[in-house]
């Protein structure tokens, strides 16, 4: 079997964040058991940040590190998202232009709620494995944001917010998928997928998150078990407790991953409570660091959990990561891949942790002002000019060229490097 997987990857999580506990307190949420949710910070999209700026800022270091010949071998750009601002035009077209890619390239966008990133990864891997264009590479960009906004008249601050607002983040993961999987080598064919129609959480109208968080949680738990059982039936000798040194799962918030891990370890691996806690700390907690600081990045979340595991795990010897993705609606997949010390060095070279640390922490009055300003870039905006003086300190935090949205002209989005 030919090798396939992630050749290079990077995370970008914006220029501003809020402390989630401060936000929950600000909203008057019940804080008695807040620590169980395992949330710390979340990235907040400023008006001049959108899914394109997140995606380009994630991908740019990967593209800059390539030779012109390697860059020309990018023959597919897949955008994985539920935050697109156009039903027809794909965001891949913007990525293609802003990153200066070869025009002999397939450009398209892919959606299935939080499953999109892994649907994209597997689609990319299958393109590489098909060998229809030997040596070709895929640029995969999973990018999602949640933009909360208050309108005059008070509409917007609904009950739904109490769950979604503290957990919904913003961010992107960019990955080069090729036959040189230096970072994450996919176990080809080792996949259990499981999907069915359910109305759990969704975005039924522009800029609106809605649905039943309880049902989504239960469906996630069901799918985690069913997808793993399918993986096990396809992979001879697969053992949840022993086959994977680490587990990386879609992370709406850390507490949900902890619950899903507890459930599947008890049910499938017949593990005892004390062992489950130790197992969680050892095998799962490395995956949580980035997501705990960024919030739920939807389509990018499972890839972010994989990146976090590679950054924080021990890869002195090659190790296998078991991965689980769940997207509302729903579809899920349990799959696996192998990471070496070289892969860890390549991910660590991106400096993702220090990038997260440089974000500007919004004070609550800044955050509330942002909610009142965000409608400037709501879905369907035809013309707008973004004010660079809004939370101006955030724009320079990374100390390197960063892409921002400059204006919207007749629906076309125009960007600037700052």
């Amino acid at each position: 079997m030919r090798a396939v997987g992630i050749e290079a990857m990077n995370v970008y999580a914006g220029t501003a964040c809020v402390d989630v506990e401060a936000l929950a307190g600000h909203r008057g949420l019940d804080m008695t058991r807040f620590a169980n949710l395992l949330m710390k910070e979340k990235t907040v999209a400023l008006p001049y940040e959108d899914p394109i700026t997140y995606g380009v800022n994630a991908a740019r270091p990967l593209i800059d590190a390539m030779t012109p010949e390697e860059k020309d071998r990018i023959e597919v750009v897949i955008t994985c998202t539920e935050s697109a601002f156009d039903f027809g035009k794909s965001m891949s077209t913007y990525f293609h232009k802003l990153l200066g890619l070869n025009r002999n390239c397939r450009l398209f966008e892919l959606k299935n709620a939080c499953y999109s990133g892994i649907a994209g990864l597997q689609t990319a891997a299958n393109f590489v494995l098909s060998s229809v264009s030997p040596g070709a590479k895929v640029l995969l960009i999973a990018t999602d944001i949640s933009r909360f906004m208050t309108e005059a008249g008070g509409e917007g601050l609904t009950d739904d917010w109490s769950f979604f607002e503290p957990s919904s983040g913003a961010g992107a993961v960019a990955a080069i998928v090729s036959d040189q999987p230096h970072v994450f080598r996919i176990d080809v064919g080792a996949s259990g997928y499981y999907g069915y129609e359910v109305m759990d959480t969704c975005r039924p109208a522009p800029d609106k998150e809605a649905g039943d968080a309880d049902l989504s949680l239960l469906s996630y738990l069901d799918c985690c078990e069913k997808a793993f059982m399918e993986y096990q039936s396809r992979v001879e000798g697969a053992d949840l407790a022993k086959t994977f040194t680490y587990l990386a799962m879609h992370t709406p918030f850390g507490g949900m991953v902890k619950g899903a891990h507890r459930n599947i370890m008890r049910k499938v691996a017949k593990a005892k409570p004390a062992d489950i806690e130790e197992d969680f700390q050892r095998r799962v907690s490395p995956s949580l660091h980035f997501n705990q600081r960024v919030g739920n990045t939807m389509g990018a979340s499972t890839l972010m959990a994989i990146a976090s595991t590679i950054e924080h795990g021990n890869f002195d010897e090659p190790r296998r990561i078991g991965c689980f993705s769940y997207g509302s609606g729903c579809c899920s997949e349990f799959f696996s891949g192998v990471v070496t010390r070289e892969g860890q060095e390549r991910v660590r070279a991106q400096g993702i942790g220090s990038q997260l640390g440089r974000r500007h922490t919004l004070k609550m009055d800044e955050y509330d002002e942002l909610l009142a300003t965000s409608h400037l870039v709501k879905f369907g905006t035809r013309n707008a000019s973004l004010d660079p003086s809004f939370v101006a300190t955030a724009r320079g935090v990374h100390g390197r060229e960063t892409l921002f949205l400059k204006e919207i002209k007749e629906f076309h989005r125009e960007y600037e490097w700052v």
Partner: protein
Amino acid sequence: MGVTPAEDSAVNQEDILQLIIQHARDVLPSLEGRELSPTDSLRELGANSMDRSEIVMMTLEAIDMDMPLAETIKASNIGELAQLLADRKAGLTA
């Protein structure tokens, strides 16, 4: 407290309700000393969504039953939850 499947394979609704109450007390120590009735909802008793799924899973395990957790969303209080599980159990074992 309650019955185990070994003692009685036809677990009835009242037994399941008692198991739900027992597990709710295990997960939510704040319920100590409080009388619970079938019309109580776990949410109103202070259980968040993680707690509620935990209580359902513990109960399913105790009655040796497997069903999609998502189906239990229909129950709006612990009495309805007990009935739903008892109906499914009866359907499966009939």
